[in-house]
């Protein structure tokens, strides 16, 4: 039996990669640093951040659309990734600044003095001057890069092991994930948890060692990195959900009990996908926050994860490109409508200001999509490709007239 290469079996992957390449090239050629300057640097940053959100949506689709777990805590992993890279960004940059100012002293500072001065600079805002234990590796980029995937991965592994082993399912599992991200946010809000409380980490747009590079160039570099990460993890996710493993994952979503009787360790599969998705989300977060410049515990509030679920639902669950398109379209629309640039809608007797009404419109859109187009935006592509599910509504006629469904019998 000859087997076509992976890309040919999944033509949508090729289309996504091509679209991503064209988009990245176009933005580069229109950027201020490398092109005509038609797209301002702030807009390049918005686009780069949007690609990171799209990556988080792809991971969400793995967990929700394919595995069937509506996780309302995905953004906890996203923010943790951001915090992990933010620790190094903030520490290394503060160290550079402090070292420069201490260099004027008659006696050069010792390593100990330097660290104390850095800690004082970073934690003065929360009334502390000691470097917390959780910052032990903050001086090392390599260590923090490892932590970007290790910390969210470990959290997902432990949380998942406890929840899946007890066979918590459905809405109860969703509530648990939501509780997890809320608990983490509340912990981070405390000043003594070691992450600067509600101030969060800031100044992340300044990359240590790259002081000479302008933000215009940096924004394009981050756009490239975000696009590359999205491309790489999109291929990984598409590979994971193709073939026999994808079959088993979708089967778990549809009838987990039956999969157990086939002999598959359902909990093991859930744990692998959930942990992998958490790690992908964390990488997306680690690329997002240097572009945003600031991270604080409000980013972990459950509402952020609910937005992610809304994007995936509108884009189309169970289709990786659907999740990606949903995140890109809805988050860009959101920032346009809430940015105050959208023209007001003048109705007779009332002026609809989008800043106030966008949330309502988004909520309405979500309800409408759920009710009338459960496949979301991806459903349009399915329709074009002729992948319509067979319209076999109605109940089985049962054992005796077994071979037909209600509607077929009527026809």
């Amino acid at each position, binding site marked *: *039996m000859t*087997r076509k290469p992976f890309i040919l079996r999944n033509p949508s992957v090729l289309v996504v990669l091509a679209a991503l390449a064209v988009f990245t090239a176009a933005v580069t050629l229109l950027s201020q640093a490398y092109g005509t300057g038609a797209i301002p640097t702030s807009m390049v940053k918005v686009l780069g951040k949007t690609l990171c959100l799209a990556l988080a949506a792809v991971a969400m689709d793995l967990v929700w659309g394919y595995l069937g777990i509506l996780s309302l805590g995905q953004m906890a992993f996203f923010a943790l990734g951001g915090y992990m890279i933010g620790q190094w960004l903030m520490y290394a940059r503060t160290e550079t600044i402090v070292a420069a100012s201490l260099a004027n002293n008659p006696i050069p500072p010792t390593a100990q003095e330097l660290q104390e001065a850095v800690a004082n600079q970073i934690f003065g805002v929360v009334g502390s001057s000691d470097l917390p234990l959780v910052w032990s590796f903050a001086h090392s980029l390599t260590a923090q890069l490892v932590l970007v995937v290790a910390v969210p991965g470990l959290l997902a592994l432990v949380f998942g092991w406890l929840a899946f082993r007890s066979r918590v399912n459905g809405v109860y599992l969703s509530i648990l994930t939501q509780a997890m991200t809320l608990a983490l946010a509340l912990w981070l809000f405390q000043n003594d948890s070691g992450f600067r409380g509600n101030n969060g980490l800031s100044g992340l747009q300044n990359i240590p060692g790259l002081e000479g590079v302008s933000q215009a160039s940096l924004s394009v570099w981050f756009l490239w990195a975000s696009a590359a990460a999205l491309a790489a993890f999109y291929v990984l996710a598409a590979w*994971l959900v193709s*073939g*026999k*493993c994808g*079959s*088993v994952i*979708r*089967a778990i979503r*549809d*009838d987990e*009990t*039956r999969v*157990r*009787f*086939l*002999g*598959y*360790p*359902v909990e*093991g*599969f859930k744990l*692998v996908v959930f942990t992998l998705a958490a790690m992908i989300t964390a990488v997306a977060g680690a690329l997002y926050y240097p572009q945003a410049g600031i991270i604080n515990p409000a980013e972990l509030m459950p509402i952020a994860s609910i937005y992610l679920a809304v994007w995936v639902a509108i884009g189309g669950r169970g289709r990786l490109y659907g999740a990606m398109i949903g995140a890109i379209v809805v988050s860009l629309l959101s920032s346009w409508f809430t940015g105050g640039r959208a023209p007001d809608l003048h109705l007779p007797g009332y002026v609809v200001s989008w800043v106030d009404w966008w949330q309502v419109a988004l909520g309405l859109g979500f309800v409408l999509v759920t009710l009338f187009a459960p496949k979301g935006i991806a459903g349009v592509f399915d329709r074009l490709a002729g992948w319509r*599910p*067979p319209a*076999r509504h109605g109940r*089985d*006629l*049962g*054992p*005796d007239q*077994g*071979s*037909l469904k209600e509607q077929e019998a009527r026809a």
Partner: protein
Amino acid sequence: MSALLEVSGVSVSFDGFRAINNLSFNIGAAELRAVIGPNGAGKTTFMDIVTGKTRPDEGQVLWGAESRSLLKMNEAQIARAGIGRKFQRPTVFEDQSVTENLTMALKANRNPFAVLGWKPSAASGGRVADLAAEVGLADHLARKAGELSHGQKQWLEIGMLLAQEPRLLLVDEPAAGMTLAEREQTTALLVRLAQTRAVVVVEHDMDFVRRLNCKVTVLHQGSVLAEGSLDHVTRNPDVIEVYLGR
């Protein structure tokens, strides 16, 4: 003959109701057995206990030559040990093709990472084609299981069971939803399978049981009422009273 499955003194209650009461049951490595009994006799609960879905309050369930206890294993481990179960309602993965359904059921390493690295080979493709031919679905390999008729879904599920290559098959009302011709086909298949492995058939339909021509166990109120050939048990006055006499 040493037993493949040995259930002894098993009891289980749900909210005070004794669904299974001191039940003992043995089956050899290559044997066909029909289990009959009125509704509520505990037939399905018995299957649930053997497959690990329900934990008994007391008793022992031993498996294989090494007499491993099944009570310490979960559903997936029991399935991997070689016990396959066919449900009363056909349960196939409707959103996936017949090929995908059968491929998933093929005997292979079930570890997530092994599954991730699994690639279809000429052997696996051939096996899927053979199984599909055996259950009459050779022309439907690419169709989604949800599109199949009720009877075809039953067959697909039987095909998936065969793909698992179990040593013990538990079959719940296999003839439900099948035409007369399909019933005969099913009977022949079950009899043939029982030559190489143990098969337990739970059935209501007496004609079907008669055609299987095998030893029969009658359950009533969670324990064994009678055991023997169909003619033997149908002459038993207790059996006539609780089941056939109604």
